[in-house]
């Protein structure tokens, strides 16, 4: 570990002494767990689809290096820098999303990906955190009471983003973006009457998605019908947890990874449950809870509304993704293609996640206006 003197006034030195080191450690722990679980789950999947056993492991590790660089690099910025980077990223990523309709590759009926050389990127992954920061800025300006219509601009942007995502179609991503935006709006001080109205609108949105998108409808139907035996992945996941028990069957001794198509991505938590058992799963849930709740509680002392809203948005996004993924694995929620942050395999989405966490780290850094270092 690099050590820094308290008096080190360099960029890195200042960073080390002001960054939330507990958050940093928690993220490192997640990355370590993710590597172990990718080692456990992905060879079975790779073998099944005819790739080299360690294909996914190698790719995950290869992506970790730029991801870490992006995360640390972003976290070196101050709030104003974050705002700028987020705004530029938002514009670039939105352009990318528009591009997917023209040059995008079609995967499973959706236009979500564009290819850069050998690397395929999902621009909407970057829209997600960037938009959270941009709308935090707009909300904060609105709340300054200068008459700046930040909420209206933010609402317009949100409608545009969600509209584009639904066109791809990427209902899951659109839902995450809307929920995070709503959470920010709520924290920013949305009047309670409107909170209830928007809540109703959200429900209407879910119902609308149910009516409009057949694949959403079938997933919800499957979830609601307890007698439905069609839901193969969920059934196998339930068996995995049951067979894992408290201590798990032991690393490599799980069976669910042999039959689940998404064992290394959406259902990696089930693999953890089977091979490492209840205690390991509780530990993983604990780390996610620690990150989310620590960030929220640190924001209680935040004096900069923009920082508060942006960090709350990024934390909500991170926590939401974790809760939804684990909820699906545990059959608490209908199947929804959402990865478990830092643990699921996912090349380019890891970069977007690193960017988001880098911004969160930057925003939760201690700054003189927030008083003493804790």
């Amino acid at each position, binding site marked *: 570990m690099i050590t820094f003197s308290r008096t080190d006034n360099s960029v890195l030195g200042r960073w080390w002494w002001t960054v939330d080191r507990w958050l940093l450690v928690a993220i490192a722990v997640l990355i370590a767990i993710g590597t172990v679980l990718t080692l456990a789950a992905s060879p079975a999947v790779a073998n099944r689809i005819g790739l080299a056993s360690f294909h996914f492991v190698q790719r995950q590790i290869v992506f970790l290096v730029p991801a870490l660089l992006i995360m640390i690099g972003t976290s070196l910025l101050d709030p104003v820098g974050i705002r700028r980077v987020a705004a530029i990223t938002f514009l670039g990523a939105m352009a990318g999303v528009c591009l997917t309709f023209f040059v995008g590759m079609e995967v499973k009926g959706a236009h979500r990906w564009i290819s850069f050389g050998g690397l395929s990127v999902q621009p909407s992954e970057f829209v997600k955190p960037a938009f959270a920061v941009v709308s935090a800025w707009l909300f904060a300006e609105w709340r300054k009471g200068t008459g700046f219509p930040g909420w209206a601009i933010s609402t317009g942007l949100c409608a545009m983003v969600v509209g584009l995502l639904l066109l791809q179609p990427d209902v899951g991503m659109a839902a995450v973006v809307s929920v995070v935006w709503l959470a920010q709006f709520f924290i920013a001080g949305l009047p309670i009457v409107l909170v209830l109205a928007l809540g109703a609108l959200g429900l209407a949105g879910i119902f609308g998605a149910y009516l409009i998108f057949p694949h959403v409808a079938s997933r919800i139907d499957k979830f609601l019908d307890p007698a439905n035996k069609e839901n193969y992945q969920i059934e196998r996941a339930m*068996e995995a947890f049951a*067979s894992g*028990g*408290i201590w798990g069957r032991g690393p490599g001794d799980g069976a669910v990874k042999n039959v689940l198509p998404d064992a290394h991505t959406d259902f990696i938590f089930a693999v953890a449950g089977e091979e490492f*058992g*209840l205690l390991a799963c509780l530990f993983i849930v604990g780390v*996610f809870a620690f990150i989310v*709740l620590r960030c929220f509680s640190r924001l209680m002392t935040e004096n900069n509304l923009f920082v508060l809203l942006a960090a709350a948005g990024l934390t909500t996004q991170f926590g939401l993704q974790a809760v939804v993924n*684990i909820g699906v694995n545990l059959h608490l929620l209908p199947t929804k293609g959402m990865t478990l942050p830092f643990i699921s395999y996912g090349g380019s989405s890891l970069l977007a996640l690193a960017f988001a966490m880098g911004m969160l780290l930057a925003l939760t850094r201690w700054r003189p206006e927030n008083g*003493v270092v804790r």
Partner: protein
Amino acid sequence: MALFRRQPKPKPPCTPADIPGAPTMVRLEGAAKQALEVSRGRLVIGIGLFSLAFLLVAGRLVELTVLRGATEPVIARGIDSELVAKTSLMERQPIVDRNGNILATNLKIASLYADPRKVLNAQHAATQLAQVLPELSAGEIQAKLNSEKSFVWLKRGLTPREQYEVNRLGIPGLYFHSEQRRVYPQGPLAVHVLGYTDIDGKGISGIEQYFDEQLRDPSRTGDPLELSIDIRVQHIVRDEIAKAVEFFNAIGGGGIVLDIHTGEVLSLVSLPDFDPAAPGTATKESLFNRITLGVYEMGSTMKTLNTAMALDYGTVKLSSGYDASHPIQISRFRIRDDHPKNRWLSVPEIFMYSSNIGSAKMAVDVGPERQREFMMRMGMLTKPTIELPEVGAPLVPRNWKTVETMTISFGHGLSVTPLQLATATAAIINGGVLHPPTLIKRPPGLPAPGRQVIRREVSDIMRKLMLLVVEDGTGKKAGVDGYLVGGKTGSSEKVNDRGGYNRKANFNTFVAGFPMHNPRYIVQVMIDEPKGNKSTFGFATAGWTAAPAAGRIISRIAPLLGVPPVDENSPAIRQAMYVPYVQTQEKKLASQ
């Protein structure tokens, strides 16, 4: 809980709000401050919601892993879905005897398969496997492991020890598939009733085949199929018949115990038999069910039917009789008596001395038409109904004339399954009701299906006549003190390859009922081609071979079946069972 504690808001050292005379700044700062307060308040709600979500997830984890974790996974290893579908069909209803003893059930076993692509060194693996599974050859295993497939069976149904040994080798690419195997804890004991299943759990003979669909019915797999068989009786019958077959150096044998009031088969034995666990090693002979599939000329045991027929049609009375002093010559047959008395014989005497001449004359007075009708009524001319796929059809003469009437009267010229004889004899002694035989336990208390085939009075007479056979006639060796055994012997010569009769090859039958004053069970014993020995003075007839076996069976099963012994010499019983018109004196003198 430090995470949740709301920190006291640190006071900024110096803010514009503290500076008087800056109204715009104060207003702005005031709005911003108020906004911050609102946001912080709402952050608490966010914290609350996330805490709830994580607690919910943790609770669900405990529920799924610990509270529901007691069951084993349905699939222990990743395997193709076709195999899974097959496995689910292995679920099969257990089979129990009438007292609930398990006759067939399912056992979870491991089967060994390999993914040859993952086996590193096929030759080494094959050599090691052949050492722990000696019935497999190393060459065959190696050939399988060298194939391009991703799935090859190596051995189905390993014992736990074999599974342990294979596991201990630690060869990569070998896997166990957990499946169900049908097991028969009683071994060969009731194999001709139960039949067996193939390796995939499909019934391919006996009850297993007859009820295959029902046994596979998923809604039934919990409760067992209850048979009428009493496994204790089955054991005794098989034991005694096996002893007799060995003692008389016979080629086979068989036995039936029938509840005469319900038609329930308590025991069905056909020897030789085989182990249902290894049907592949069974000979053709041992797979053959002599009781329900084999048809035989039942010999003199058919005289029970013949006598009942004549009494039922009223062509004879108990006091009637026929001259049996000369053999009958009809076309190419010469009908003689095996135990010739060379005199006029009464109806009871014809039966107890098993006179062919008397029986033939009795049948001729009934006539071919009525004899045929009677045999039809007694179920002797159609396939018997029993819950087995192995059922033989009787061989009925195409021309049923006087000659056939005569030979059928003493059990030649009409071949039936031993089961048919037992069923008909049961009707003759139970008051005249023919109950179709069944291997399924009848619900107690409900009347068994059946139809009246002879008059009750005829049945009463027939019981006395059958008792007479054991007390004073050809079946003395079947007598058991206290159980009033009645019966009839039958020793038929088997048809040889040239179509003639083979004097050396007998099919011996003894059909017994007990206790004759209040009959409850038929015990029928067949010995196929017994050879006489010193103890029988060279005789190989039913009275010497099958009758003693039937007697021993009755002496062992009667107490088990709750039949109370009686004093057979008590005046009440002697009077009830008295048969007139019998001269036993000369017989007694002759034997002295």
